[in-house]
């Protein structure tokens, strides 16, 4: 019940954007525009999946929606590719953040609350995962799983390297909360550990958790692009990463096919910027002391 109240409170606060800073507003606006763009993908015509349906490397023209951003070297519409790419990249990001952040949340809270041997083992495991350079490991996994790769699986692969950071941070917050008066008071008044976690600790972690989800999404989008550079993303689907992969493959930059190069890169940079702004916006809202430092 306490949880529901806090969730409601948080949403109420987030909805009250008047109270949020400029950063949050700017970030949310950019993200909203990109989302609208992505939602247009539901109107994708069936012929979009065929190669060479359109003339190759056609510069943008206003003759129809398909040509608004021109076409690629393999005769596909950049516009429809981009709209689909946004949605697919976001799906990967959401899968990753939901998995990684919640695994991190559970492990972080448990090891923070339980302490002792459980804490030591869990943190050793977490630290070892942090010590493994994430990218080579992901590349190895993606390479092995290439025959059966899909959006969900890609999310799982990326979350393997993302969860330890969340776990570490959540544990640190839990440890500091554990020493706070209200938690000690709850313990002395005979509350069970689970009840303390849910009604006393969880609500205070929620703010961090929200920003963490957004940051993990940001990281996941970047990781997907990185995998795609190596041809390890889902090549047959449109994602922001695979769009860049084909750009590289066809040397579009050196042929100055700007209409093909600019949209995915610009979208990526704007997406990174918007998510980052939203997350720092929430952080500053939750912790007003940060505002001074900007």
């Amino acid at each position: 019940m306490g949880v529901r109240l806090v969730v409601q409170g948080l949403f109420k606060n987030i909805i009250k954007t008047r109270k949020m800073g400029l950063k949050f507003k700017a970030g949310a606006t950019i993200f909203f525009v990109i989302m609208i763009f992505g939602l247009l993908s539901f109107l994708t015509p069936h012929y979009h999946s065929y190669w060479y349906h359109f003339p190759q490397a056609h510069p943008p023209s206003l003759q129809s929606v398909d040509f608004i951003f021109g076409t690629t070297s393999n005769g596909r519409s950049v516009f429809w590719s981009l709209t689909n790419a946004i949605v697919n990249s976001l799906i990967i990001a959401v899968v990753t953040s939901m998995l990684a952040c919640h695994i991190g949340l559970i492990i972080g809270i448990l090891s923070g609350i339980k302490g002792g041997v459980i804490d030591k083992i869990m943190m050793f495991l977490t630290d070892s995962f942090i010590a493994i350079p994430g990218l080579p490991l992901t590349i190895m996994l993606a390479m092995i799983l290439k025959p059966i790769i899909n959006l969900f699986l890609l999310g799982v692969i990326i979350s393997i390297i993302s969860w330890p950071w969340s776990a570490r941070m959540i544990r640190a917050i839990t440890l500091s909360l554990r020493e706070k008066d209200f938690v000690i008071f709850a313990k002395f008044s005979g509350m069970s550990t689970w009840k303390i976690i849910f009604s006393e600790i969880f609500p205070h972690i929620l703010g961090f958790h929200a920003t963490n989800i957004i940051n993990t999404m940001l990281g996941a989008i970047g990781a997907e692009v990185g995998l795609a550079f190596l041809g390890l993303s889902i090549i047959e689907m449109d994602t922001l990463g695979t769009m860049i992969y084909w750009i590289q493959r066809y040397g579009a930059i050196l042929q100055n096919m700007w209409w093909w190069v600019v949209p995915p890169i610009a979208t990526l940079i704007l997406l990174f910027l918007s998510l980052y702004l939203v997350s720092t916006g929430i952080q500053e809202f939750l912790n007003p002391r940060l505002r001074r430092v900007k």
Partner: protein
Amino acid sequence: MLPKHLIKYFLFRILILLATIFTAFTITFVILKIMPIDIVNNIIARSMAVTGAALGDPEAVRRMYEIYYEIFGLKGTFIEQYVSFLNRFLTMDFGISILARPATVQEVISYRLPWTVALLVFSTILSWVIGNIIGAVVSLFEGSKLSNILQSLAIILYPIPYYVFALVLIYIFGYIIPLFSLTPIRLPSNIFSLEFIITVFRAMTLPALSIIVIGALGWWFLSSRAMALNIISEDFYLYGEIRGLPKLHLLKKYLLKNILLPQITALSINLGTIFGGALLTEILFNYPGLGTLLYQAVNAGDYPLVLGIVSMSIIGVAVATCIMDLLYPLIDPRIRYR
């Protein structure tokens, strides 16, 4: 002579290093074990496609299967599998590379490693130094136009990975201002010639630039500035001002000294991320380092080489982090003289 507590700390830190490498390898082993895909079948098929080996010789195929079963720790009892896997990872003995046969994985990697290390050391140190100094200096002019511009720029650059920014650089320098060639470089054989140095320099400039711009103006600038603003409002800084110390002295001994120490820790924590980003950046610029090698290995289905690079990165990053942690107490006087 080192104080006793330091020796204790060093030994403990090295123990941690061994434990992390060991656990990391174990994790890799477990992950490979639970893969739902028959890796060895995959490799043999790919390998045959690449080398064009005839399927006719069943003896050769059987031997290949055996070798790969051993490399991936699939031979013998569970314990045997584990031990042989660990052994191969630690010694990086992954046999012959499919891509560069008859060279072994070790040979291929040791040829490319200096390039990656050079790029990483050069660009990481430079971006760390530049970013921290700019951050501290700009904090002294808080509220000025320059400070606001740099701050907005940093917010835009901060979340962009190196390799995405590298694309922007390629577009600018490859097409609009064609200063640098993006074709694979060919090294002159004489290492001491001027030509060699120029080639290395040209190969390194753009990848280093993308790492330095993002690292310096994004990451390190933001954190250094935030820290500097905190220090400026601290009592010891104000007291330094009250004593009338020269501005440059305050900047060096009061701001930078107190910023750089925690930033060393931040650097050691982020080494893994920096390393991964740099690998991908290499690919975009055809830089002849481990990253480009990894790209070639992935495309050729050269699993032994990929495993070799993974194990190399695990050991490399863990050792680098450990070295930084070991150096830290020698740099921070507060720990040295506890």
